[in-house]
């Protein structure tokens, strides 16, 4: 595996670790996981139109981010139900539009061949946007997390901040489709951040630990996948989940 082939997964994992911290703290793990499914019909349409699948997926994910954002003000139960229905339907429609090997690849990741220059360029640009957004806006995101009303008195435009955050989340899912697929990318965003939440004492530690864990499991999972000749997505998520359970064990031992 060449260095060039590792640049994109590392950039994707850094974005996933950072975005995931706020997704976990905002308790939006379910919406996050379901949102990734909406990429599938985008991939199907892009393949039918002979456009690079990543562009179709990204467009659909940005649209999905808009849906989740517009539902966030409603009651939690209504939101979860609607999100569950919309994104399961998206998965079903996408499965009809995408067929054969491409469907398995889109679902579980591990795309064959090296990424094209366009894909690498698009991926690095997207990852940079996501990382810069989270690092620059982390203070505003923390205040919004504590109290949306306090954030309003500081002049923070909460609805705009939340929309931008959802779209950063959508872009991060798009980044990881090649490696984890639409079924598993949500997990790479959520699991390292959930592990980091248990192991950290402050925000910076959480951001750092989540990012390191996401990068570590991505590199290890991708390496194992090429060695075992298996799709990378399931291996990355199995490693992430293993570290999460080890983290649980450590926390329990520390408790008085």
């Amino acid at each position, binding site marked *: 595996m060449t260095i060039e082939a590792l640049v994109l997964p590392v950039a994707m994992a850094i974005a996933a670790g950072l975005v995931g911290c706020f997704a976990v703290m905002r308790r939006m793990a379910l919406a996050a996981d379901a949102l990734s499914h909406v990429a599938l019909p985008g991939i199907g349409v892009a393949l039918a139109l002979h456009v690079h699948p990543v562009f179709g997926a990204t467009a659909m994910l940005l649209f999905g981010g808009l849906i989740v954002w517009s539902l966030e003000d409603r009651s939690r139960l209504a939101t979860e139900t609607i999100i569950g229905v919309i994104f399961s339907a998206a998965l079903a429609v996408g499965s009809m539009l995408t067929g054969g090997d491409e469907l398995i690849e889109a679902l579980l990741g591990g795309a064959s061949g090296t990424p094209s220059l366009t894909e690498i360029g698009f991926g690095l640009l997207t990852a940079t946007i996501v990382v810069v957004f989270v690092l620059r806006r982390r*203070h505003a995101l923390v*205040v919004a997390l*504590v*109290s949306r009303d306090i954030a309003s008195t*500081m002049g923070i435009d909460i609805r705009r901040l939340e929309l931008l955050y959802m779209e950063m989340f959508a872009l991060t899912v798009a980044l990881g489709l090649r490696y984890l697929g639409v079924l598993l990318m949500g997990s790479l965003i959520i699991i390292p951040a959930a592990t980091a939440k248990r192991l950290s004492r402050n*925000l910076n530690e959480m951001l750092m630990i989540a990012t390191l864990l996401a990068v570590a499991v991505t590199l290890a999972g991708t390496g194992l996948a090429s060695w075992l000749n298996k799709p990378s997505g399931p291996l990355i998520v199995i490693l992430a989940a293993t570290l999460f359970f080890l983290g649980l064990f450590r926390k329990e031992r520390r408790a008085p």
Partner: protein
Amino acid sequence: MTTRPPFPAPVTPQPVLDVQHVSLRFGNTQIFEDLSFQVTRGASVAVVGPNGAGKTVLFRALIGAIPVEGTIRWAPGIRLGYVPQKLDIARDVPITGFDFLHAQAVAHRLSDAAMAEVLDDVGLSPRAAADSIGSLSGGQFQRLLVAFALLGNPDVLLLDELTAGIDEIGQVQLNELVHGLQKSRGLTLLIISHDLSVVHRYSTDVLCLNRRRAYFGPPRAVLTSDVLTEIYGAPVAFHVHDH
């Protein structure tokens, strides 16, 4: 509903806050109707009334979080500090007091020394501020929220039941703290409280409201048994500290 001052209100050229004919409905539920009052600079206004009277909703309208009919006008350039009663955050997140304060410090381009100063002002140790906010006691957490508000160098502090759920000694300390800060920093205070004795002791004006009526004026004029019985729907007794 009209806000009827029991005494003619003193004429003030420039109130910090001017509320005129404000009404709000949520669906079929009237929260308040035609509410009018003015707050002068340096005043300490207590908002009292039974549960469900719309006190918190009024505060949220005052900070601009809820649109209302009528006019809510703050004097130009006024900075607000708000301590809400209910927070959105889960207690188990690794966000420390310093992480939270840092957000305000960054917004106002303040140094770490400014954070240390407000912590000292509210009597919260740097050690407690370095802990996750979920591990703070009720009183420590309220002090942190006040410190956060102070870091924004506010002219007006809006405190929604600052002492709710805190033991009696803690309540006394928090009340002393807030009114000490008001004096030292020349703040205007708007406070939602259930403790009428404290309201009587510290407030310059009281807004006493339920969903049908509102009274605004000095505590001795508003906190009468007639008004309280009308607003609360039952006689309310409280102890007056005379000084």
